[in-house]
């Protein structure tokens, strides 16, 4: 506590504060831009295949989808509680809106800590089955994969508190 610099009382802070703020803004914008990157299906599938260590929780969502936003805190909590799980929030927004900035602004506003990626594909009829045959395409949907034992579960509905942990334990054994 005593080592903390009290910038409000320092005369040098008049210069330091705006500098610090602009630096923070630059840092946060650049890191968010990296997080919510566009991805094609082939690369997304390669990412899933190449994850050898961690169980993967993959949530398909969109900024316009109310039940998706309701369940987002469950994934954020899981991200905080379980560093052994890899979480990805895959935005489907580009299926309706070619501009990905809305997703990035949303991620910044909600201060999401989970990895967010934006799927950049057209013509869902061609790729939905490649992600999951059981998926109708409705949002929200969640896929949980354990590459170590080949187990996977898929749920096409909004999840409630406690359900993610149960699903994870199903693919763990």
């Amino acid at each position: 506590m005593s080592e903390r610099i009290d910038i409000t009382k320092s005369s040098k802070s008049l210069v330091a504060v705006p500098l610090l703020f602009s630096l923070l803004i630059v840092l946060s914008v650049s890191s968010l831009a990296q997080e919510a990157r566009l991805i094609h299906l082939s690369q997304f599938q390669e990412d899933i295949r190449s994850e050898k260590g961690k169980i993967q929780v993959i949530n398909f969502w969109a900024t316009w989808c109310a039940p998706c936003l309701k369940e987002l805190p469950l994934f954020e909590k899981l991200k905080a509680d379980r560093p052994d799980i890899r979480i990805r929030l895959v935005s489907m927004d580009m299926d309706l809106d070619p501009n990905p900035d809305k997703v990035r602004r949303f991620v910044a506003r909600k201060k999401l800590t989970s990895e967010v990626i934006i799927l950049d594909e057209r013509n869902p009829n061609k790729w939905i089955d490649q992600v999951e045959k059981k998926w109708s395409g409705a949002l929200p949907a969640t896929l949980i994969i354990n590459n170590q034992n080949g187990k996977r579960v898929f749920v096409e509905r909004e999840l409630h508190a406690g359900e993610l942990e149960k699903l994870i334990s199903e693919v763990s054994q």
Partner: protein
Amino acid sequence: MLFALVAATPELPGYEVGDKAIDFKLKNVDGRLVSLADWKDARGYIVVFDCNTCPYSKAYNGRIVALQAKYSSLGFPLVAINANDPESSKGDSYPNMISYAKKHGYKFPYLIDETQEIARTYGATNTPHVFVLQRKGSDLQVAYIGAIDDSARDANAVTRKYVEEAIDALLAGKPVMTTRTKAIGCGIKWKNS
């Protein structure tokens, strides 16, 4: 555990292409009950599970109106059904359906599936979700299930008009080439889910 999850999942298996579909009697936005059998001369039907609130439904609204304009006179009337639970989606309440249909100039019935039984029986999952039915005597046979076309975000970028292709084939007495498609969409808001 797996069984418990399956039981908790709201969808029944639903129809496959070729299945016999049931008729229904659902309340329209004008207060009257509507059945498919009301159209005595229909050769088939375009049944669209739709709603007021989904951005995909909004993106397709003009295309749904156009489908009705093009095909009702050819013997394929269009019927829209809203199965969303108004408890979890207030914008889909019956009074909101009435004003939505009025605002968008619907010339087709917009029915409320209050018990969600028809959506479940058909296997509708998202909105808009289309079932093209062909009339065979007194039976209704499912001829196509899926999306209206292959480009939700841009009607000008459509390369496949799935529903039109299916009905055009039926009208010409030819087999439907693409009988089932998938699309991203808003999940139907089921009760107690």
